[in-house]
């Protein structure tokens, strides 16, 4: 195919669950011979940090299934009705939920966010950090992985205007 398709993504969230869509789509698009740029803004910027530390917060995700990744099938299928009073107040609850989500993903043969991000970097996905949000949050470029470029809304729009797919995550 001679005309290369292009995909422009905005990654605006930094939690573990929302870290997946941009990296899954970007790595797959490149595998489908597309050219990809991801614009990381607001909380999405944290996905560019050298040490990824994305977590999930079940109390802000009412539809998130709370299941255990181990034990017999009947146990794994139980949805634990954990009240917000507990999930939002119990210290360490998010860490436990994050560990459980990572375990579940692993047991289902899903790549880690780090793996997918590495593939994106290796395969030439262009990663752009939003300069304005970096200033607001006090992030510096040396906190990010190598190869990140910086820019603003115009940088994204210039690429997006020529892109066949544009998605906001």
């Amino acid at each position, binding site marked *: *195919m001679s005309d290369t*398709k292009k995909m422009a993504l905005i990654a605006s969230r930094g939690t573990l669950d929302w870290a997946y869509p941009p990296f*899954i789509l970007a*790595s*797959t698009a490149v*595998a*489908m*011979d597309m050219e990809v740029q991801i614009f990381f803004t607001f909380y999405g910027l944290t996905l560019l940090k050298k040490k990824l530390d994305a977590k999930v917060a079940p109390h802000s995700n009412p539809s998130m299934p709370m299941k255990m990744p181990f034990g017999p099938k009947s146990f794994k299928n139980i949805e634990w009705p954990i009240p917000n009073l507990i999930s939002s107040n119990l210290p360490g609850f998010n860490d436990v939920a994050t560990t459980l989500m990572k375990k579940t993903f692993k047991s*289902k*043969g*899903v*790549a880690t966010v780090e793996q*997918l991000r590495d*593939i994106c970097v290796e395969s030439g996905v262009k990663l752009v950090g939003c300069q304005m949000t970096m200033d607001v949050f006090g992030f510096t470029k040396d906190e990010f992985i190598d190869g990140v470029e910086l820019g603003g809304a115009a940088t994204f729009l210039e690429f997006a205007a020529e892109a066949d797919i544009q998605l906001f995550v």
Partner: protein
Amino acid sequence: MSDVQANMELDCRGLNCPLPILKTKKAIETLNTGDVLKMIATDPGSINDMTAWTKRTGNELISHEESGDEYIFFIRKK
């Protein structure tokens, strides 16, 4: 069974989206034009995904078979 001879076999059993596609892409890059890759997956989504991937990349999906829980694809590199 397909009577196509594969030049390379790729085991994607147990892997979930998008890994079978990403690994297939990597594997096909190591082959020469006309070579055939045999890929085995257990992800039921891989039938639609492989069809879409070959359509987009121009590689030829020679055949796909189902055998128990496994999906077996033969892809010819363009």
